[in-house]
């Protein structure tokens, strides 16, 4: 198996892993992290497609490393992912500031007032 395919499978696994974390983790910060994991898995799939496109060309002697269109899309995606993460973090910190909670569980305010370190 070529390294490119390997990284493609890796990206697929990361999407699954991130999806699990996004659904199962009660903590919002961890959900944000898991969401970023899904994003990077998808970007990796784009990267694999870009590399394959370049490989076919290199065989034809075009002298291009990779397909620049998916690569440019990934750069765009990374910037947007950063912006989305910044908003999510700001929302989370505001949520904690107002309610003392850092989960999206039911309304029952389990952690307010938050006894530090104790888990419910």
């Amino acid at each position: 198996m070529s390294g490119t395919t390997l990284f493609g499978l890796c990206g697929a696994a990361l999407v699954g892993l991130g999806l699990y974390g996004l659904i199962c983790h009660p903590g919002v910060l961890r959900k944000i992290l898991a969401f970023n994991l899904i994003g990077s898995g998808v970007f990796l799939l784009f990267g694999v497609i870009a590399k394959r496109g370049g490989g076919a060309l290199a065989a034809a002697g075009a002298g291009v490393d990779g397909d620049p269109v998916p690569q440019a899309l990934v750069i765009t995606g990374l910037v947007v992912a950063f912006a989305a993460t910044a908003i999510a973090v700001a929302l989370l910190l505001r949520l904690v500031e107002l309610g003392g909670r850092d989960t999206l569980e039911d309304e029952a305010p389990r952690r307010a007032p938050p006894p530090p370190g104790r888990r419910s």
Partner: protein
Amino acid sequence: MSMAPAVDAGLALLILGLGLWIIAARSNFAAVVGFMTYGLMLALVWVRLTAVDVAMTEAALGAGLTGVLLLGAAARLPAEAPGGGPGAGLRVLVAVLCVGVAAALAGVVLSLPEPAPSLAPLVAENLPPTGVKNPVTGVLLAHRAIDTLLETVVLIPALIGVWALAADRAWGARPGALTPRPSSSSLTLLAQVLPPFGILVGVHLVWAGADEPGGKFQGAAVLAAMWVLVVMAGLADLPKVTNRLMRYTLVLGPLVFVAIGLAGIWTAGAFLALPAGYAKPLIVLIEVVLTLSVALMLGLLLAGPPKERA
């Protein structure tokens, strides 16, 4: 090159291990540190996929700035991840679902068409008229300019969204998430010595980005990082969110981009088209003003909503 498959396999294992760590780690802090390491390793994967532009963006934005953002958040939250969440049965169900999604994607990866479809020959054919030698920059600014315009514009609503979360009485104050650390001489030294070199690296990334790997996003991320370093060392203050000069700089890049794009309707026959012969200088102009605006936006996104200082 006989080492390459082993390196690839090692990298893939490392990435998956770190991904597991990010999901499974007990404390928020450990998960965030894992995420930063993961970003750096991912940058190496991008190098292996011959996408050096993406590798730089991943290292600077994905690992660096996102890491700082999340570390700051982790420091303001309780150390332990909160308990709760779905019960064991539901977790198994979710796990099965996620394995299914991953397996479907893996199936797609394994059954990608041969030979691979590619837009690269089209780009290579149409690159010379732009005068740019880096195909990724060419795509970003000439062929898919509308994407690039929208993505720089999308940073502005993101910033407005972050600012909108300020408490009412804090409006008009300075952003509050990057509180200067209690004076530490080593941080001060780093913030005094490093930024001049960082500025040169950032300018070089933007300038060389037309012909070599690099570009405005990578350069802007480096410049933003230097700014954040200086602010965290307490050597400079962030501008108030009502500062006019800062606001003009924020919109300068997108405005110039739109203006040149509109001018393209008359000079080149289409919105965002660049007139023949002037493509390269116009691309450089757009890159320079966008770098300024994007660096400012990235830094302000890190700095968070305005907050009253005690």
